[in-house]
Structure formats: C-alpha cells, structure tokens
C-alpha cells in the first residue's frame, strides 16, 4: 500500500516538474542560445511584397524634391492656414473632399464584387450629400457607416495586375506603375473632374487646397515620422511596400 502511494507521488511530482520545466519563463536565459537565433530572425526574413526599384536614382531625386517641398512649403503654409481658419471650416472642407471620393469607391467596390461595401459607400454618399449639406458634414460616420478605401489601383490588383516598379511622383509621392494607371481612373471618376471641365490650373488649385487642408490636421507628423529614419527614402519606400502588401494582399 505504501509502495503504491509512493509510486503515485513520484508520478505526480515528475509530471509536475516536467511541465514546470516546459514553462519558458522559469529557465530561459536572458540571451537565447545560438540555436534559437535561427528561429528568431526568420520571422523577418520573408521579403515583403515584390516591389522592385530599378528607377532608384530618379526616385531618390524626386523624393528629395518632395521632401524639401513638404518641409519648406507645405508645412509652413498649412500651419499658417490653420492659424487663421476656424476648425469648423477646415473640417467641413475635409469632409467635402472625402465625400467626392465616394463615387470612385462605389465603382471600384462593384468592380471587385464587393457589393456590401458598394452599398454602404453609396449610402454614405447619399447621406452626406443630403443631410451632410453637400458633403460638408459627415453624419454617415456617426451613423456607423464605414468607409471603404477601394480605388482603381486596388481593383487592378484584384484582377491580378502586378504592381510594377516603385515610382515616386512629384507632389503625389510614393506610388508604383499600377498605381499611376489607377490614378488616371480615379481622376476620371471624380465629380470634380467634370465640374472643372479639364482646366488644369483650376484642378491644380483645387488639389492644392485639398492637400494644404489635409496637412493642417497632421502638422509635424511627416517630420516626426522620419526623424528616426537613417535613410528616409528607404523608410518611405519600405513603408509603402509593407502597406501595399497588407492592403492589397499580394
């Protein structure tokens, strides 16, 4: 009888201590062994996406141009604008421009077969244009209607078009070959395009106002984001690549 209890006790103790040994925090050294090193790094070994950059030299030049433009022209302008413009007006303008992007989103949601998203975006557009007084207000978000970022670039990706090389556009910033074709489609489906009737100067003025207004909500963010980057060009290119990979799932 005594022997049996002893056996049980030994079994229990050995089981308990075996499980305890498996618990990581009780025996892991602060510096993992070399064998572990292999596993650790492999989590980040996978190449994210296939964004090639054959145009790196040109891209870097344009990136530097955009960077200077942002810090020396855009930020100060947005800062001054913010000082003299009541936030109600700035928010109204932001809502207005966001609303004008909805028709493009509806079309692309349909092209991608995302009917629920198309429907929700359609409702957003109707609600914000009517109850939101021409898009100046955003009751749709308040009502819980979500925004769906579907544009022509994502539709092309959905149809299997590869991204093509990384291209930095003057003013517009990081993009790729597919994205540029996407921009064309997006512009053609924007209501403003018809209103402005192909007047490039007016279009530039409108685009500039939109950008300055948007920046007024994000002052210093650009600089802060890049303040820790050793190579801002690579930091932005990598961030763009990672974002595209996640959002377009390629």
């Amino acid at each position, binding site marked *: 009888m005594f022997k049996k209890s002893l056996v049980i006790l030994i079994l229990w103790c050995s089981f308990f201590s075996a499980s305890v040994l498996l618990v990581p925090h009780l025996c892991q050294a602060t510096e993992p062994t070399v064998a572990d090193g292999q596993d650790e790094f492999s989590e980040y070994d996978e190449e994210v996406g296939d964004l090639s950059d054959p145009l790196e030299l040109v891209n870097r030049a344009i990136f530097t141009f955009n960077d200077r433009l942002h810090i020396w022209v855009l930020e100060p302008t947005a800062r001054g604008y913010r000082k003299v413009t009541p936030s109600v007006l700035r928010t109204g303008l932001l809502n207005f421009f966001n609303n004008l992007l909805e028709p493009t989103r509806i079309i692309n949601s349909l092209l991608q077969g995302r009917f629920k998203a198309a429907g929700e975006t359609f409702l957003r557009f109707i609600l914000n244009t009517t109850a939101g007084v021409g898009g100046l207000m955003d009751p749709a978000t308040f009502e819980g209607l979500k925004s769906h970022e579907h544009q022509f670039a994502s539709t092309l990706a959905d149809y299997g078009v590869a991204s093509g090389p990384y291209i930095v556009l003057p003013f517009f910033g990081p993009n790729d070959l597919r994205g540029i074709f996407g921009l064309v489609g997006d512009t053609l489906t924007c209501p403003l395009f018809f209103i402005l009737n192909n007047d490039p100067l007016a279009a530039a003025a409108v685009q500039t106002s939109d950008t300055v207004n948007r920046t007024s909500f994000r002052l*210093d963010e650009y600089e802060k984001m890049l303040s820790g980057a050793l190579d801002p060009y690579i930091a932005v290119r990598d961030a763009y690549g990672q974002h595209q990979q996640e959002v377009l799932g390629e």
Partner: protein
Amino acid sequence: MLRHRLIVLIQLSFFLLLSFVPVNLWGGDSGPQQQLEVSINHLLDVLRDETLKGDEQQNLRRERIAEVVFMQFDMRRMAKLALGRDWKGLSDAERCRFTGLFRDLLKKSYVATIDGYADEEISYRKEIIKGFKAEVKTLVISRIRGEIPLSYKLHVEEGKWLIYDVIIENVSLVRNYRSQFGPIMKKKGFIGLIAQMEKKVALAGEKKDG
C-alpha cells in the same frame, strides 16, 4: 481496498486535470493584452496630464512618455531583429552600444509621434497567443485621423509580456528599420552604421524644439 482505490483515482484525476491547465495559470501571470492595457492606460495618463501639456513641457513630457513606453519594450530584442543576422557577429559591447543608439532613435521618432496623440480612444480588437509569442491588435480611434490599426507583437519572459515589434497602419517598425540597416551595413559595415546612427541622434537632439 476500495477506499485505497478511490484515493488513487482521485490522485490520478487530479494530475490529469493539471495537465490541461494552461501554463499561464501556474505562474499566476496575466495575459499580454492585460499587461498591455495597464501600460497603455499609464501612457494615456501622461498624455492627458494637464501639468505636462504645452511646448515648454515638451522635453519632460517626452521623457515621461519614453519611460512608460519603453518599460514594456524588449529593446534588445527589437534592436537585434532590426539588425538581423549580423547581430551574431557582434561583441557584447557592440551589441550594447547598438541597442542604446536604437533606443535613442526610437525615442526621437516613435515617442515624438505618440506625443501628438491625446484625445484618442483605444479599442482592443484581438489577442492571439501562440506559445511564447503573442499579437495584440488594437485600433486607435481619432476624431481627425480616423481609425488607425496598431498591433503589438510580444513575447513572454518570466511572466512579463514584452513588446518586440509595433505595427502601425500595417507597417512593422522592425521590418522598416531592417530595410534601412541592411544596405548601410553592406556599404559601410557596423562602424559606418553606428556612426550614422550617432549622427542622426545628435541631429535630432538639436532640432528637437523646431
């Protein structure tokens, strides 16, 4: 005889039961999301602290933010992963120096970026635990910036869950630094990398209040 059998049965079932108890429970550890929430709440306290608001308080405020944030970071692991396999060839002193500089770089950018957020709501979306690693997905809900996905990758060490990567709007911090460090290591070697990091940290220090 029967009573003895009963005792054996009870003992057997007891230790069978123990085998199904999740490892966490034994140490009395809280999960990654729980520990993260505590840190984030501390952080929000600092961000909402009226006495720390304003430009004059910027340095102090950012020091406090760094304190709270970095307590939950495994900075050494982050630096190691950001450098990649070249870490293996470094001496202890070199690793220490590199980690310190990496921390300084993060302090300038990551902490400064957090400093801009105060009125935001954090929504905890998902907690995925796989053995010693975990991912906690959150959403930062800002009136003006919309919804920003923010995920944390953590690993557990002595019951404490520590962050080794932050993924902001689908962009991993570790991966982003790796993409920068790689070419620099290739071109200028470790010495060159350290030099560039020191230069950046010094530069950022000068420009801080700009």
